[in-house]
């Protein structure tokens, strides 16, 4: 199911401000790609351009090409709603729908396409998604309880279950562990290992160890100063980037010498 993503000459703007400049990269299917770099260098912005979530911000726009298996996401005829079903997303802070139960949260995406989805088939998908997100055992007795009663780590895994319930091809994660404790973080890292056999995963992380642990390939972004756009410095196999970075800036950042 997983798809290859080809990005070419991508420029991303907030109004007149160019936040990301001239990015070209290929994201391989069935792998985890980590985006690293100092804050403000445009990692989140870039990530959100991959499922057209960027444009929900007023005056935000994108120039360039993002193609999934050859299909350009930014062609005029493409429906952003369809893109987002194809490319799921997990946010930095867990955001389950507060008024819905755990079951309803997981089913929320499915219900959109099939209002009357109910019964065993739906329950199956919910169970499978929760198992997929390593959450089933913890919540199977309280599926009807509000999602807001879960811990932060559980909520984040619920959001992952919600995202994979609609079977996207690509899963984007923006610092999914930054609001979580170490044990929940480990649970989610394990989960990524399981998921990458089926999805193309792109993860933004601030944590070098995490990037090294979970990702197959790593892309390093940086900015040259305030008001400057973020740029992709280099991208390669994760062990390669971490042991023999090609650029000085990458090495400085990885070894913590970045200002």
């Amino acid at each position, binding site marked *: *199911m997983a798809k290859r993503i080809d990005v070419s000459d991508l420029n991303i703007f907030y109004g007149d401000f160019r936040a990301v400049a001239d990015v070209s990269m290929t994201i391989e299917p069935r792998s985890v790609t980590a985006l690293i770099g100092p804050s403000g260098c445009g990692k989140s912005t870039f990530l959100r351009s991959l499922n057209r979530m960027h444009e929900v911000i007023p005056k935000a726009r994108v120039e360039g090409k993002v193609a999934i298996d050859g*299909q350009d996401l930014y062609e005029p*005829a*493409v429906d952003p709603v369809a*893109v987002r*079903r*194809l490319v799921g997303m997990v946010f930095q802070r867990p955001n389950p729908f507060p008024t819905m139960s755990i079951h309803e949260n997981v089913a929320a995406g499915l219900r959109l396409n099939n209002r009357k989805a109910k019964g065993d*088939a739906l329950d199956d998908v919910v169970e499978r998604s929760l198992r997929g997100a390593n959450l089933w055992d913890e919540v199977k007795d309280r599926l009807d309880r509000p999602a807001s009663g879960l811990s932060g780590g559980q909520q984040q895994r619920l959001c992952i279950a919600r995202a994979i319930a*609609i079977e996207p091809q690509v899963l984007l994660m923006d610092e999914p562990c930054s609001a979580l404790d170490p044990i929940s973080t480990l649970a989610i890292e394990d989960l990524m290992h399981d998921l990458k056999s089926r999805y193309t995963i792109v993860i933004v992380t601030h944590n070098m160890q995490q990037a090294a642990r979970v990702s197959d390939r790593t892309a390093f972004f940086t900015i040259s100063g305030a008001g400057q756009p973020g740029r992709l410095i280099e991208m390669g196999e994760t062990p390669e980037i971490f042991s023999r970075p090609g650029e000085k800036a990458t090495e400085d950042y990885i070894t913590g010498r970045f200002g």
Partner: protein
Amino acid sequence: MATATPLLAEPGASPPLRLTRGSLPRWAPAGMFAASLGAALLVMLVTSFNWYGWGALTFLLYVVVITTVSRRVEGSRRSTDRLVTALVFTAFALALLPLLALVWTVLRRGVPGLTFEFLTTTMRGVIGAGGGVEHAIVGTLLVTGLAALISVPIGLLTAIYLVEYSGGRLGRWVTLMVDVMTGIPSIVAGLFAYALFEIFFGPGVRMGAAGSVALSVLMIPFVVRSSEEMLRLVPAELREASYALGIAKWRTVVKVVIPTAIAGLTTGVTLAVARVIGETAPLLLVAGLTTSMNTDPFHDRMTTLPVYAFSAFATPGFPPEAGYQRAWSAALVLIILVMLLNLIARLVSRFFGPRTGR
């Protein structure tokens, strides 16, 4: 995977179809709306023209066309989305309609009678045409001014109590009761003022001051609310800086806090005045009606603009046209007053207001 969507079907399915499938061009809604407008107009011309019929038919045609076409091309979800969009736009148009009709009617009917003479004569000895609102304008200014004189100190001091002395239990009660007061129907405020003044002046009492008391009951909660909000915007550091200089609390409030918040306080008071200046019912009960000028709020009936407009309508005299004309022109004067106050409030807060971040 019964519930899985066709979107995710087989890996072999061709991607271009998936992402672009079914999407109406951007101009489709506007185009269809124009077409519905035209078609409805045709129907109207063939039968008999009527603005509401045209509007309603256009709406129906547009909703039916866009939802069915969208359902065919884009599927039921997009079709529902377009239906709701149409409903939301319609709601806004519906809300705008009375506003436009109101402004237009008041201007059309009110402007012809709005002469210099109308503003500078009273109704003394007037039968039929002629006469004016001079005494009503004076009455309105006196009654509302007196109401402001009562409400502003009480309201402002209460707000200071709530913000600077943080109240405790009494504060919570006051906050709750101010909330309750905002819900008092204006006619009840009028009854209260009547009952209060009856004690001192006997049954059937009518005077401008009683009207002011009634308006105060309506105005005080406004002043408290807005002043409270404005005082809370004053940064705590300012107060602390003043205390640190050894300046007493009451002087800090008077010399530092209030001057800092003065623009917001003025705006709030102006808006509160604008709110009550159009009140009719309580003044009808306790300020009453008279044909001549009365500048003493503590003696006798005092005409105010809203009551004047109401009575010119309710007892127009003969022929009634002259009375109706006076009612509309008085209404126009009243609206101009209210809008002027709103404008002043906006300007004060725009040019002297606190610079709230971002």
